[in-house]
């Protein structure tokens, strides 16, 4: 069986979608079979990083949740269609599928209004794990702790929590860690993102974070303005592999891959 990896942060703006997309890409580059699900139904965004726009987007998670299609029909094969940029073209032929959320306002407002059956989402995820024989299924979650987030945490084999080095994030992450332990998530990983380069004593920060949460800190990624400039259009770690951010991200990928 493959592993479900949920990527979560207590607050928005931690660089969660970016990290998820780059992580999935790094793992796919190592010839793993990888799925990426956008469960941030309220504010989807990860599709852009994989070169998917409204025109190219076919069926979505929303269609699946409303019973309009099977989960398999939502799959967008990044390896087949994403040769349109320097970074993504490296994924040509790789087994990487994206399961996007709808970016149509009508679909978003419908799901916010009517809600959806989290059990159906769970069934869908389990189905595609089996049918696509995935090694890893990455779930990009909505920030905070609502029902679908709790579900994705509950079904995770690995939970990667992203936080920025500030006290609000430390506080929120503490609650999320408690929830993950209560739900018996077997592997908990931490990632600090958007650290101002040179501002902190990294060893000290790592020691404090690991002591506080009792989980390994996989990497401290620098605040990266180039990401803001470029990565909305491309996968940063593929396009700029020598950048410190990309090096740090590969450490996170190693940490995920090393879990048996």
């Amino acid at each position, binding site marked *: 069986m493959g592993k479900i990896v949920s990527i979560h942060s207590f607050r928005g703006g931690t660089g969660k979608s970016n990290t998820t997309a780059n992580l999935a890409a790094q793992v796919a580059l190592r010839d793993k079979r990888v799925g990426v699900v956008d469960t941030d139904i309220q504010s989807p965004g990860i599709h852009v990083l994989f070169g998917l726009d409204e025109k190219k987007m076919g069926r979505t998670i929303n269609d699946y949740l409303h019973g309009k299609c099977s989960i398999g029909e939502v799959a967008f094969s990044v390896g087949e269609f994403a040769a349109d940029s320097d970074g993504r073209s490296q994924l040509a032929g790789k087994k990487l599928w994206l399961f996007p959320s709808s970016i149509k306002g009508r679909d978003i407002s419908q799901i916010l209004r009517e809600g959806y059956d989290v059990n159906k989402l769970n069934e869908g995820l389990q189905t595609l794990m089996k049918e696509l024989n995935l090694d890893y299924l990455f779930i990009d979650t909505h920030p905070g702790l609502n029902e679908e987030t709790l579900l994705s945490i509950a079904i995770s084999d690995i939970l990667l929590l992203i936080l920025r080095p500030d006290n609000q994030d430390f506080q929120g992450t503490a609650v999320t860690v*408690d929830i993950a332990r209560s739900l018996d998530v077997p592997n908990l990983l931490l990632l600090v993102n958007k650290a101002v380069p040179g501002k902190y004593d990294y060893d000290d920060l790592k020691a404090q974070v690991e002591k506080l949460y009792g989980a390994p800190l996989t990497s401290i990624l620098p605040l990266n303005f180039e990401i803001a400039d470029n990565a909305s259009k491309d996968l940063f770690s593929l396009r700029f592999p020598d950048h410190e951010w990309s090096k740090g991200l590969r450490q996170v990928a190693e940490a995920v891959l090393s879990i048996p």
Partner: protein
Amino acid sequence: MNLANRANPMMWIPNNMADETTIQQLKKTFLFNGLPDDVLVTLLDSIVHCRLSKDEILFRKGDAGDSLFMIGEGWVKIVTEDALGSQLTLNQCGPGEAIGEMSLFDQAPRSAGVVALSDVTLLELKRDALLQLLDQRPDVALLVIRGISSRLRGSTTYIEKAIEWSKKIAEGDFSFTEQTQSRDLLSDATQEDRAKQFLSEFFKMARNVRAREEKLKQQVEKLTLQIDEARRKQEFEELTSSDFYANLKEQAKKLREQRSDKK
């Protein structure tokens, strides 16, 4: 000069020892180097030769001042005290320079103290003698005024420079410390020594401020992770008290069991 204020041991040399030597010495001073010999001769009776050993005090700040000193040989420092009573060196003066000329004209107490940095020879001139000379010889008065004007002009230059640099430091612009070399400041022969000294000290200060700022910038911040444990517990309880959560926990447990069976 009040003898009681003078620190011991100070050695005195009689006036009549060598008038010619005294005249030559006066010619080497900045105040009197332009005066003709016949004028200098009239001063001879009013000149007192004195000598200081290293570390000896000539006068203290606040002392009454009724004479002017011109340095023959050696160096002295002009000192004052800061608010905490520590000695601050304002300037150093050497051969040819005059000390105490301010008190001579305004009759105010000494504005700073003077301490010998080495063995020093001095020529002392009483106020009365100088004023008498100025009264008789307007051309001498003009020379003295010219000397003081020159000092003022020099002061104005360095004050202007100091204002300019202060503004730059306030704006965090330290580029002038790169553009200006210390030797440029010291090679300006028209500047008085005091001005050079001041500019040089100012320059050092700017460099130090800059170095300190850069060190601060590099200093890494040690974050202290602060968690409100009560809030953490309360939020956890709120999240986990629902039926949804209990159900989810149960389902997750079953799901994990199923999946681990398949492995």
